[in-house]
């Protein structure tokens, strides 16, 4: 298959996992765990998680394994829980940036929170993580990622059609 077509298909698949209601462009929290709580709370409010505290417990444990802030201002908090119903991705942006104990020590602005149900083997988050990392490794896309301000600019970034 033509490489360009294949790339487009992958971006389309990726953007289809994002939901406008699960994109937060103005995260307010200034601390690591409070920003995770802000995102988990939003997912609970949207009916995506059955128990916000269980999600927080899992995310905190994941961070104690090693920060999911991979540097360049982007973090990928992730994990599996019985409290999540289906593979879910929340996009979050903190305009001012926060200390997320990232690997390069710089403030984190962009969050891809990825949650997978623990009882469904097929819904793994690894492939999704890998696709997102490919995007972030592209300097041009990374620059654009830091500039996104609404859902349509996020869609454009992923190569989807602007709506």
């Amino acid at each position, binding site marked *: 298959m033509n490489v360009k077509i294949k790339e487009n298909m992958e971006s389309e698949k990726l953007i289809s996992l994002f939901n406008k209601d699960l994109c937060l462009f103005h995260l307010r929290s200034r601390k690591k765990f409070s920003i995770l709580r802000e995102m988990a709370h939003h997912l609970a409010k949207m009916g995506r998680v059955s*128990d916000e505290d269980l999600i927080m417990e899992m995310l905190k444990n994941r961070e104690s394994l090693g920060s999911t802030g991979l540097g360049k201002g982007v973090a990928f908090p992730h994990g599996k829980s019985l409290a999540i119903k289906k593979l879910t991705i929340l996009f979050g942006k903190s305009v001012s940036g926060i200390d997320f104990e990232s690997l390069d020590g710089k403030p984190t602005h962009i969050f891809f929170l990825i949650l997978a149900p623990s009882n469904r083997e097929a819904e793994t988050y690894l492939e999704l993580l890998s696709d997102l990392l490919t995007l972030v490794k592209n300097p041009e896309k990374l620059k654009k990622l830091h500039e996104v301000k609404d859902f349509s600019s996020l869609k454009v970034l992923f190569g989807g059609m602007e709506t």
Partner: protein
Amino acid sequence: MKKNSRFLIALQDLDIMISEIKDKSTAKELKEMGFELSGLKELENARLELAEQISPAILNRYEKLAVHYKIAILPITGDKCLGCFVRLPTSFFSSTPTVELITCENCGRMLYIP
């Protein structure tokens, strides 16, 4: 959801995380993506602390089930056990259960009402 069920679910989430990190191919994949996975000891300590919150009899049942099943505790969300997919007897639903955790008669998994 009652206390023991919540702690058990948190414990199971943590066990899944630990088993993923101990799985060489998953750990390799995550490391190649750039994730640091140096805090396994912290996770094991968190597990010990969490296990202490659960009544010993229930914890013991979970530990025995967890040897055989990755998912030992599940919510009841229909008329089937989500672990073995065998229909639960109607008596499960005819009265409000007085126990916190119900046992699937087919597979033995622990079921809770979410």
